[in-house]
C-alpha cells in the first residue's frame, strides 16, 4: 500500500492504495466519483478522460499512485453551482449525446482542445476527439457542440 494525496474537483483526498490501482478505479470505487466511466481496457475509447494537472488524460491508463500530489478535474467538477460549463451546455443544446456514456470523456477531451485551440475548425475538432469513441451520435452533433462552445457560428 502506498499513501497518496490527490485533489479531485477541489477536494483533497489522502488514501492508502495498492500501487496497481488505476486512477479511474480510485475515482469510481474509492471516492465514489462515478461520473467518470470505463469503456474499454486498451485506452482506445476515452470514456474515462479526466484533466490531470491541466492536461487531458485517460484515467484508465494512469495509476492512482502516479496522480499523487496532482490535481484532477472530472466532469463532476466542471459546473459552478447551477452554472454549467459551456461545453456541458452546448452538448445538451446540440443534442451531442444519446446514451451519454462517452459524454464525460468527450467533454473533458474537448475542454482540453479548446484550451489549446480556442477557435478550432470542424476538422480540428474531429482530430482532437479521435481518441474518444461514441457509438450513438455519429459525431456530427458533437463537433457542432464543441464549435458552439468555442463561441463560433455553427450551421444547425
Amino acid at each position, binding site marked *: 500500500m502506498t499513501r497518496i494525496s490527490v485533489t479531485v474537483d477541489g477536494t483533497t483526498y489522502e488514501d492508502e492504495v*495498492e500501487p*496497481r*490501482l488505476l486512477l479511474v*478505479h480510485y475515482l*469510481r*470505487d474509492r471516492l*465514489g*466519483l*462515478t*461520473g*467518470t*466511466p*470505463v*469503456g*474499454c*481496457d*486498451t485506452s*482506445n*475509447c476515452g*470514456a474515462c478522460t479526466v484533466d490531470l494537472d491541466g492536461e487531458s488524460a485517460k484515467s484508465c491508463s494512469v495509476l492512482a499512485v502516479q496522480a499523487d500530489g496532482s490535481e484532477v478535474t*472530472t*466532469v*463532476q467538477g*466542471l*459546473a459552478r453551482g447551477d452554472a*454549467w460549463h459551456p461545453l*456541458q451546455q452546448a*452538448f*445538451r*443544446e446540440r*443534442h451531442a*449525446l*444519446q*446514451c*451519454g*456514456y*462517452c*459524454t*464525460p470523456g468527450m*467533454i473533458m477531451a474537448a475542454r482540453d482542445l479548446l484550451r489549446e485551440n480556442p477557435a478550432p475548425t*470542424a476538422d480540428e*475538432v*474531429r*482530430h482532437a*476527439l*479521435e*481518441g*474518444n*469513441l*461514441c*457509438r*450513438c*451520435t*455519429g*459525431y*456530427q*452533433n*458533437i*463537433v457542432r457542440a464543441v464549435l458552439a462552445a468555442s463561441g463560433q457560428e455553427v450551421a444547425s
Partner: protein
Amino acid sequence: MTEATEREVGRARLRKEDARLVTGQTTWTDNIQMTGLLHLAILRSPMAHARVDRVDVSPALERPGVVAAFAGRDLADGLGSLPCAWPVTEDIVMPDHPPVAVDEVRYAGDPVAVVVARDRYAAADALEAIEVDYTPLPPVLDLEAALAEDAPLVHADKGTNRCYVWPLATGEDYARVKERADVVLTRRYRQQRLIPSAMEPRAVVVTPLPASGEYTLHSTTQIPHILRIMLAMVTGIPEHKLRVIAPDVGGGFGSKLQVYGEEALALAVARRLGRPVKWTESRSEGCLATHHGRGMIQDVEIAATREGRLLGLKVDLLADMGAYLMLVTPGVPILGAFMYPGIYKMDAYDFTCTGVFTTRTPTDAYRGAGRPEATFAIERIMDELAAELGLDPIELRRRNWIRREEFPYPSIAGLTYDSGDYAAATDKALALFGYDDLRAEQQKRHERGDPVRLGIGVSTYTEMCGLAPSRVLGDLRYGAGGWEAASIRMLPTGKVEVVTGTSPHGQGHVTSWSQIAADVLGVPFEDVEVVHGDTKAAPQGMDTYGSRSLVVGGAAVHQAAVKVVGKARKVAAHLLEADEDDLDFAGGVFSVKGSPEARTTIQEIAFAAFSSHDMPEGMEPTINAEHVMDPENFSYPHGTHLCAVEVDTETGRSTIRSYVCVDDVGRVVNPLIVEGQVHGGVAQGIGQALYEEAVYDDEGNLVSGTLADYLVPSAVDLPDFVTDRTETPATSNPLGAKGVGESGTIAATPAVVNAIVDALRPLGVTDVAMPCTPQRVWQAIEEASA
C-alpha cells in the same frame, strides 16, 4: 386533438435526460456500491472447441479476498439452460446452453468457472489459479463446410450443425418466372460478423433479501421485463420475487436485448451466498461474450426483363448462429426474409435460410437485425442489374418501385406496406446531393484517368419495424407478444406521471413521451415525468428493440392520455353541470360551448378526482388510465440515401465525400432526436461498410477482440451527414410514426459499398467484400486488371 393543442409534438425539445448525463450524475449499473458487495469474475475458454476434462477451482479459494469459486458442475443444480424465445421452425435443433460450460466449451469465451471475491481486482487475480484440463476438439468455422456429411459437430448429441431450414416462396413459381427473364444475375454477398460495441460494457448487480426470498437485479439491459420472466424460468426464482431494474443504460443496439448467462449466474451466486454480487465485463471480455451481429452468406439471384422490369428474386441464406441459440438468434435472419424484395414489385420471390452452428460467439440482434442484410443484398444487386442493363441505378429503381398511389401495397413477401412515397424522397435526395453534377464530375475524372475515382452509391430502402402485431409474431413462432403498455397517473397537484413499458438506453423516451402526453393532456411539458425500466414501478412492458418504442410504446402513451381526457371530461361535465358533448377541451381547459367562463382545468379535475367528494354517479375515483397498444401492422419507414465516395486507386483508400439521406419515418415527435438517430444509424451502417469485422483465425480465436483491433469508427472516420425528411404518416398507430432507430443502419451500408463499386466499375471491379478496407479495395482493383 385540435391543432391549437399540439404545442409539443413536432417540436425540437432539448432532452430532459441530458442534465444528469452531462454533469456525471449517472446511475450506470457499475456505479452501484453497497456494504458487503462481492465481485464476480468469470474464467473463459481460451479455445474455440474443447472437451472440459477437469476443472479445479480450489486453488482460487486460497487467494486473498476470495469468498467462493464454482465450476459449471457446481452451479448446474438450480440453473437451467439459457433461453431461446424464437424457435423459428417446428424441427429446429435447440441445444442446451448452460450459463457455465460443464463438459464442453464451444467458443472462445465460453464460461468455465466463476470466482467471487471481495473486490474486482482480487476476483480477476484468482481466475489464474483455477486449473482446467481441456482436450481440444476441431473448430467449426466455415458455414458451408459445417453442413458437409462428415463435418465435425458443434453439438455432437444433435448429429448435425444444421440448426434449421426456413423457406418462404411467394407469388408465382420462381423457376417459371426465371424462364421468362432476359437477364438473370447471380451474386454472393458476405455479411461479416460485427461486434455491437455499445459504449457501456455489460454489468449486473444482484441484491438478495434471503429472509423473504426476494431479489433485485440491476442490469445493463434493454429488456427488464422480458429479462425478469426469463431469469425466473432459468433460475427457478418465482417471477413475483424478482425485481429487475435497468438504470441508466449506455447504449445497446440489440446487444442488450438478451438474457445473458452472467445475469443468471449473478442471481445463482447471490442466492447461494445470500450476499449482493456484482459483475462487470471488461471490453475485451465483452468482445468475446456479448453476442455478435450479422454473419451470413447470401446467394442472391435476380431475374428481369431487358427493359429492367424485375420478375423475380431468389435468396439462399446461410446464417451463422454461433455456438448456441440465444434469445432471438434464429429469428434474426427471418426478420430479414420479408425485406429482400425491398420497395420493388416483382412476380416471384423464393427465400430459404439455413441456420448453421459454428464454434464462435453466438449471434443475435444487432441494429437492424436481418433487415440491413436484406437491404444490402437487394440494393447491391439492383446496382449490378443497372450496370448490366446500362441503366442509371436511380432509373432502374424508378421502373420497379411501388408508386405512391399503389399504397396500401401487398408486398411480394406477404407484408402490407401501408404508406410511402419513394419518388418524393428520392427526388429530394437527388436535389440535395447534386446528383447530376456529381455524375458529370465522375465522367470527367474517368476520362482523364484520375487515380482518385468518384463513385456514387444509391440505397432506396424500406424496412419493417415497430415490432408489434402479436398475432403476426405468433405466426412466426416468436415466443412473446408485440404489444406495449403505458399508464398515466394524474397526481393530485396536477403533475403527471407517465409509466411506460419501453426501456430507453439513449433514445430520449423521457423527452418524447413527455411531449406526447403534454399535448393530449394539455399540461406543460415540464409537468410530466416518465417512469421506466423498473419492473416494480413500470410492471408491464415489452421493452425496447426493433424501432418499436415510439410506434408501439409512444402510441400507448398517447392512447392512455386520450383515456385520461375522456375520464376528465366526465368529471368536468358533472362539475360544470353540462353535457359531455357540450364541452370543448383545449390546452388543458374544459369549457362549456357558448359560455367560456364556465371552465375548469384538467389539473383541477385531477384534484377533484383525487378527493372524489363529488364524482359522477357510478364513476370510480381518480382519472388515471392505462392502455396496452397492439398495432395491427408493422410500420415501414423508407428513404433514399446517396453516398459519394472518392476511391484512391493507388492506395485503395475510400473517403466519403458527401452523404445525403432523406428518410420518411412518418410523423416526427422530436426532430432533434430523430436527426440524432439517423446520424448514429448511418454511422453504424458506414462502420460495417468500411471498418468493422469480428475476425477469427483458423483455430477459432477472435483476433479483433479489443477496441484496439476492432475498428469502431472515430470522429475522423466519418463525414458530416446531410439529412432531410419526407413525411407520409403511418396508418397503424395514432401518432402516424414509423420508427427511426434502425433505418440509418439499414440504409447506409449498401449506399457506401455501391459507391465504391461504382467508382471502380470502369476498372472492371464488380464487388468488394466488406469491410471495404484499403487492402481489399486495392486487391479488387489488382484482380480486375489482372
